[in-house]
């Protein structure tokens, strides 16, 4: 029995509708939800918590149908995108507000709040009213308020978006620690890939009111179910044909380019082949002794810099292969447009579907 099960959820808001979202995950799992802005992530979350009543579909929590429960019976923690702090209470009281319902002991409440505030570095604003806080401070208060009650299920809507990289980093570590220790199940909406890498067990991708894919992190990133998801997670997709022969492993012909994969597939099948640019190694010369099973000569068509990374776009036999390398590697390889270089991809990094 899954912990949270969302079954065929529909909701119609006139201009926008959720169209049959089904989702389930287990106790203790950490699900991140991604998707373009306006794809319905927040609405989905507000359906689960009970702010919107679905026109069709059910929500089950620990096997119980909670679709018609009032929110106070659901006991689902939430961190709102716009924080929704109570303006008439100070920060301490805001955090204490929900805790009062689960912990009758004032001293123990205070200890918990202080611990949480310390971890989130908001001790200095505990006595202040939320309206005087900076964006990042408000966000951490909202987080503290939700975390301190240790809800069985915690929904978070872009909970780290207003934090600086440093704080975001430490807060992620905090989240990881609490989730493990308290066995909290989490649904976390984010636009930040780093949140996904650092926290997620599973990933759901939404588009236009529909769930495009809902899978383990590895599968979503390496085996996107369609081109939209592939683009969204930054994977490359090719159409290929499985070739006859080969030893246990499998060979796929992608427009003349033959790639080895450790996955198994029936010879002659048409398959989709996925590559992630960060798994493509770039060599100036073809390496001599190496375990890399796919080595391809390719020409650099284009590149651009983004922060400390260079995004390269190679072409080999009519197939476009992307790669990502660091600034230092870029310098070291002394790369120029139209250079012909050697690309390497491990057979384990060529996924099929």
């Amino acid at each position: 029995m899954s912990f949270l099960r969302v079954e065929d959820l529909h909701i119609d808001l006139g201009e926008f509708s959720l169209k049959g979202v089904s989702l389930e995950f287990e106790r203790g799992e950490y699900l991140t939800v991604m998707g373009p802005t306006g794809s319905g992530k927040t609405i989905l979350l507000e359906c689960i918590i009970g702010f919107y009543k679905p026109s069709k579909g059910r929500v089950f929590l620990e096997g119980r149908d909670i679709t018609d429960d009032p929110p106070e019976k659901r006991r689902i923690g939430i961190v709102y995108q716009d924080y929704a702090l109570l303006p008439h209470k100070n920060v301490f009281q805001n955090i204490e507000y929900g805790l009062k319902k689960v912990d009758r002991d004032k001293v123990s409440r205070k200890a918990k709040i202080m611990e949480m505030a310390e971890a989130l570095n908001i001790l200095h604003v505990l006595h202040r009213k939320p309206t005087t806080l900076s964006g990042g401070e408000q966000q951490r208060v909202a987080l503290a308020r939700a975390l301190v009650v240790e809800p069985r299920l915690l929904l978070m809507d872009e909970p780290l978006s207003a934090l600086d990289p440093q704080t975001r980093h430490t807060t992620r570590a905090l989240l990881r620690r609490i989730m493990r220790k308290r066995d909290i199940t989490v649904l976390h909406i984010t636009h930040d890939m780093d949140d996904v890498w650092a926290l997620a067990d599973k990933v759901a991708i939404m588009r236009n009111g529909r769930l495009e894919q809902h899978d383990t992190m590895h599968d979503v990133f390496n085996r996107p179910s369609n081109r939209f998801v592939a683009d969204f997670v930054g994977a490359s997709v090719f159409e290929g044909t499985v070739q006859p022969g080969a030893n246990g492993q499998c060979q796929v012909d992608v427009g003349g380019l033959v790639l080895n994969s450790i996955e198994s597939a029936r010879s002659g099948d048409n398959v989709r082949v996925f590559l992630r640019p960060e798994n493509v190694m770039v060599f100036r010369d073809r390496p001599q002794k190496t375990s890399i099973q796919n080595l391809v000569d390719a020409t650099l068509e284009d590149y651009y810099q983004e922060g400390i990374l260079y995004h390269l776009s190679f072409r080999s036999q009519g197939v476009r292969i992307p790669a990502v390398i660091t600034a230092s590697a870029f310098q070291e390889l002394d790369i120029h447009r139209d250079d012909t270089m050697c690309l390497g991809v491990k057979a384990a990094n060529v996924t099929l579907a």
Partner: protein
Amino acid sequence: MVPTFEDIMTNIWSDEMQLSLRLSLLTGLVSTVLVMLFALPIGYALSRLDFWGKGVVKTIIDLPVAFPELVLGLCLLLLFGKTPIGKALSSIGLDFVFTKKGIVAAQFFTALPYSVRIMKSTFDYINPRMEFVSRSLGYTQFETFLRVSIPLAGSGILASTVIAFARCIGTFGTVLILAGGSYMRTETLPITLYLNISYGNMGMALTSGILLIGVSFIAIFIFEKTEAKL
């Protein structure tokens, strides 16, 4: 015509004035509390709930504001008089005609529509998401109303209370008709004023006017000052 300061002081300490002052304050405060106790949930319901015929209900609630006090008094007299409602209330000790309870009833019904309307509009300005967060943290709708909606409505509650109190302490016609406005029994400050004008006792009339203004000023000033704390 203009009474001296000594006159006024004697008038203030007269039995009639003392009784009237005490009765005004007492009934005014009791009525204001009752008005707010009713206005808060009714205003909240009007703001949050959507139901068929809401426009009509709102209009009916607003309507008594448009009644001249004497008319409202007459309506109440008819309602609490020899009707089944009046008799039922009477049988449980709630006798409103020509009694002190009647003063409270008169003030209550005079001020209620104002307070309800103000509270409705105030709750319109409060983001329901705040209430929702509270409920998701385990508070029932009623607890949330008490702990979130009401505190957030602070400024509106203040406006509503000030107007309710002022309206209660100043209402004349309704009290006169329903409670009878009899000398030394159901005599609030506006009635004292009226009675003494009628008695031709201008000194007392003026004193009660001054007292009414003074008392209202102090009470409203105290109310308005609490704003700083909101």
